[in-house]
């Protein structure tokens, strides 16, 4: 006897607990199995690219904060590097070190949320993310010392950082860096080898190496598929060529690898911060830059390795105080290209886990 079944369409999002904001997926289900999926974007499209065309180069920095709001420092850094390349601004040594420290702290911060949200999506009721929020608060304290803000820092400027690190900053950072590996061990103890987590994420949502490259995935998603590609090594910006660190890669490209790559990257970030602290020089924190930057006519495509992947800005200047065209390569959006291929054929529960393992930030997806 055969039972007549028919697929039904169900909406995940835009206000769903685990779509990380306002992402929406129209999903065709056959029972629990996903037959087809259509992502719907744009519920947080705020027109940042258009707004940026009406602002000065310094005035854009607050807008970049709100792109990937989990990694505002990295966005600031990417923007400032792009403007510096365009206008040919030199950055003093101390500012470079400060920037690297901040960017790596931000990577820790973003990965903590990414891993926590992934574990939360796989059903560990709030506990992992709350533990990771505990450490995130410590990083936010450090940021607050520098910029006075908790989430949107608006801290870096073309030619340096907005203000020098206060005296208490380095000792506090030292304390934090000493503690952090212990906390990372704690997270590993909590769930890394948990049988249910392995069952849920090993071999699930595989993104093959070829597809990952072809669909322009970047960051941990690309590295989990086994591609050893990190812009910090491939095209060292700022002063990343002075530090020793490794690029953790996965083998299978499944959800567990993406989780593992993030966990390992956090350890490498701590390593970079340790080295940067040792070499931290004194001196100027910002070079002399005019208030209104007027870069020469030209264009620049400048990319950095943000926590979520390759974050790049394409700026066209017409030598006025505002950019002529300001384009943002939204890492999160482009990582979602292969979403459908990863999810189709899996179950509803896997859909959430796979989606969580990509780690997107809606501010950057829709811009």
């Amino acid at each position, binding site marked *: 006897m055969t039972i007549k079944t028919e697929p039904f369409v169900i909406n995940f999002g835009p*206000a769903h607990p685990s779509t990380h904001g306002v992402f929406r997926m129209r999903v065709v289900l056959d029972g629990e199995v996903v037959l*087809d999926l259509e992502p719907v974007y744009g519920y947080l499209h*705020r027109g940042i690219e258009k707004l940026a065309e009406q602002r000065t180069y310094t005035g854009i920095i607050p807008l970049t904060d*709100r792109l990937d709001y989990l990694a505002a420092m990295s966005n600031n850094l990417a923007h400032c590097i792009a403007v510096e390349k365009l206008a040919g601004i030199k950055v003093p040594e101390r500012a470079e070190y400060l920037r690297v420290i901040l960017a790596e702290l931000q990577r820790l911060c973003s990965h903590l949320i990414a891993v926590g949200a992934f574990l939360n999506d796989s059903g560990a009721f709030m506990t992992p993310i709350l533990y990771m929020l*505990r450490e995130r608060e410590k990083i936010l304290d450090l940021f607050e010392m520098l910029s006075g803000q908790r989430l949107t820092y608006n801290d870096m400027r073309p030619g340096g950082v907005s203000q020098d690190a206060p005296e208490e900053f380095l000792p506090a950072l030292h304390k934090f860096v000493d503690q952090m590996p212990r906390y990372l061990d704690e997270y590993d103890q909590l769930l890394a080898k948990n049988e249910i987590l392995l069952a849920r994420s090993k071999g699930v949502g595989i993104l093959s190496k070829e597809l990952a490259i072809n669909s322009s995935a970047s960051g941990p998603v690309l590295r989990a598929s086994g591609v050893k590609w990190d812009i910090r090594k491939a095209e060292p910006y700022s002063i990343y060529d002075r530090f020793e660190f490794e690029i953790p890669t996965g083998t299978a490209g499944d959800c567990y690898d993406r989780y593992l790559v993030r966990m390992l990257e956090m350890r490498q970030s701590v390593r970079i911060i340790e080295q940067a602290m040792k070499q931290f020089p004194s001196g100027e924190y910002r070079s002399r830059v005019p208030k209104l930057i007027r870069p020469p006519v030209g264009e620049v495509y400048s990319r950095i390795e943000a926590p979520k992947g390759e974050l790049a800005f394409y700026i066209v200047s017409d030598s006025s105080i505002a950019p002529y065209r300001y384009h943002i390569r939204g890492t999160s959006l482009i990582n979602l290209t292969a979403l*459908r291929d990863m999810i189709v054929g899996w179950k509803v529960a896997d859909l959430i886990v796979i989606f969580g393992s990509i780690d997107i930030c809606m501010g950057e997806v829709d811009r």
Partner: protein
Amino acid sequence: MEVEKPVESRCFDLQTELDRTEGANTEVLKAKSIAPIPDPDEWLEKSLERNILLTTVDTLVDWARRSALWTVICFPACCAFEFIATAGPRFDISRFGMEIIRASPRQADLMITAGTLTWKMAPQVRRIYDQMAEPKWVIAMGACGCSGGIFASSYSVVPGYNRIVPVDVYVPGCPPRPEALLYGVRMLQNKIAREHVDIKLPFPLTGTKKEG
């Protein structure tokens, strides 16, 4: 190098009618929300009439309502992470009994609108608000929630949640610190504490009828 072919069988029409309908809904809502909806204080009494509660235990009811505010999930943007930080270990919203975040709007009392609202999202937010059961409250969190913030001049952003839903408490800041959000929650609790239920009876209780 062999690249996997994308999964072929597509169940959706590529030019879906659904998109157009939803777009039309957005346009309709956009046309309707020209002026802000006034503060609910002005018409709150009327809304409470819908709730049949023939009792004089205002104090008890208000106490219960303000100590068990369950939040619905409506976290469009940046402020969401300040909300999550508020729920986190340091600021700990669970002290007020608010750590239960209901995914289903039917069971929630409070909508904390964390983040920028775009016109595309507006019908959905309106729908979440409509699905919530009375009594319900809204806290507009963040500058974007209050007025559109730095995105107010954008072509796709709603200048403030009060165009779409009536807002009880505004918490400014971009994003507001968790302390600010907690202060906003306390303000809302104070507001709920002042609420009382008036029942208009169809007949006068005492025989005397006041004129003029």
